[in-house]
């Protein structure tokens, strides 16, 4: 589903250049749950941005479902983000003045799904995160855990193949964080690919594979079982 080969990302300003990613290569199959871990500044967020089509690499190749990012226009990237990708952010990024329904509906506004089909899709997505009774509540009035569940419903509403989650538990207490990870885990078990960026070991353990990044390079890429066996998750 996802294949990156010798991926590079270089940031240039007037005087200096910074290589945020260098020679990153790996692949992710459909239905995998992958955690990308690394210390601050390691390049894990940059990698997620490129994998989720929010940014383009400056070197190497990236193919998503057999199509190279280099062959796609910005409009096509936006279409793929809308149709095949869902996003869960650390800071939720909900529009607090809108209701849960309206927030979850946002990706549908940019899709080809006809307006008449939208209410059912929104309600199904909200139900799947257990917030059906909050459908008409303003997002700003929800707790942190509820907000992130709304964000997950928004990520699911177009039925994407892959969900990108960037530190989804970073702003939550441990119990709410656990609930969010349970939801992501159940989504993965139903066949969705989940790619998670985190620096929390406990969160990363929900994945079946961990890719460690350090100084823009892949330091390790091993199944969770190997990490558990070596005790590297402690």
């Amino acid at each position: 589903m996802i294949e990156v080969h010798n991926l590079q990302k270089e940031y240039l300003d007037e005087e200096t250049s910074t290589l945020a990613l260098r020679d990153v290569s790996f692949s992710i199959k459909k239905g995998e749950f992958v955690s990308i871990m690394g210390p601050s500044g390691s390049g894990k967020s940059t990698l997620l941005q490129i994998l989720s089509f929010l940014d383009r690499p400056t070197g190497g190749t990236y193919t998503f479902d057999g199509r190279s990012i280099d062959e796609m226009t910005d409009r096509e990237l936006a279409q793929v983000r809308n149709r095949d990708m869902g996003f869960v952010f650390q800071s939720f990024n909900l529009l607090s003045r809108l209701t849960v329904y309206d927030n979850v509906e946002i990706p549908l506004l940019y899709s080809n799904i006809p307006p008449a089909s939208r209410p059912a899709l929104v309600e199904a997505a909200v139900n799947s995160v257990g917030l059906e009774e909050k459908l008409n509540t303003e997002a700003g009035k929800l707790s942190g855990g509820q907000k992130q569940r709304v964000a997950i419903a928004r990520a699911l509403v177009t039925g994407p193949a892959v969900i990108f989650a960037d530190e989804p538990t970073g702003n939550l207490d441990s119990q709410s964080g656990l609930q969010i990870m349970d939801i992501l885990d159940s989504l993965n078990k139903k066949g969705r690919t989940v790619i998670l960026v985190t620096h929390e070991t406990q969160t990363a353990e929900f994945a079946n594979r961990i890719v460690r990044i350090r100084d823009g390079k892949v330091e390790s890429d091993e199944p969770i079982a190997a990490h558990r066996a070596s005790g590297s998750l402690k």
Partner: protein
Amino acid sequence: MLIRDAFKTALRSLMHGMMRSVLTMLGVVIGIASVIILMSIGQSAQDLILNQVQSIGSDLIIITPGAPANGKFSPPASAQGIIVTSLKQNDVDALQREPAILYAVPEVRGQADVVYGNNIVTEGYTGSTQDFFLVSNLAATAKGQPFAKSDVDSGNHVVVIGPDLATTLFGANVDPINKTIRVKNISFRVVGVLGKSGMGAFGVDIGNLVVMPITVAQTQLLGTNFFNVIVTQANASYTIDFVKSRIAFTLEQNHGIHDSNKDDFNIETQADILSLLGNITSILTLFLAAIASISLIVGGIGIMNIMLVSVTERTREIGLRKAVGATDSDILKQFLIESILLTSAGGVIGIALGAAVVGIVYEALTTFASIGWVFAFPISSVALSLAVSGVAGIAFGIYPARQASKKNPIDALRYE
């Protein structure tokens, strides 16, 4: 993104900041209301003037001394303060012999103190013949009667005055008939008071008119032997254009002119006057509307300013929308529609406000001032205002909308 969804999204954004939206559109409201009010008042003034000119009668042809403007937008020489002496009694006599002309009425004009007892009023006066009252539709008097041909021929010191002047000089309870007033220190006996007041042709204040035999005005008040204007009434059996050509022919013969480009007189039909007045008032109205539109520009800049602030405030929202699939054009569309909705709503409110003010002005003028003000609310000004407010929305919204659409989603999502 469907246009319907873009409208819904934009409307929702505006509704959430209701107070800000209202204050933002205030500039456009005032601008559009000003344009509506001035265009309406301009149209009313134009209608009023044209109605009054038309009320003189469509068969009148006015001859003034001095060369015609030859199509240039300029008043005749006599109206510019230049003394032109080309119209004289022999011209009137020749015109009266012309079968195509019913009346040829000469007029002279001046200004002097009009005195009765201790009451002194400075007024314009007109010297003319007995036919003046016929061609001016002033033959029906409220009191007394117009002076007669014999008064003109004999040079009798008689005057007919307007009803407002009669009240000013004599008060409401004194009958002015046969009372003596002094005009430029010359005594005149009042023989008639006109039956109507208001504004007449060429801005003449009928209510304060002083009309005396032309023979007296020329010899004793002005000391001249020429006329300021000759008003002719066409014979209904002939077309106005034909009569006009006959007048030109007659006067050219009288003045020994062989080249019509060298005419020393100017002939204007009512259609010419209406066209000239129409042009003047239209230009004046447009000029006023142009001044009013400055406030519209100021309002538009205010909208651009607030839209730019809004774009900055909603940077994360823009980042989110782009992340979940919005294209640059979707974001541009959303913000542009917000701007157009703001200016259009401002336009509609401005039109309503303008209409209300125009209605109040109309009521006030017709109730408290006795002028024949016409209620005019030109549909063209409404259409123009709506179009201008919509275009202003695009013109002043495009820059903020472009700024929004060009935001990088990653930077936008990180914005604090």
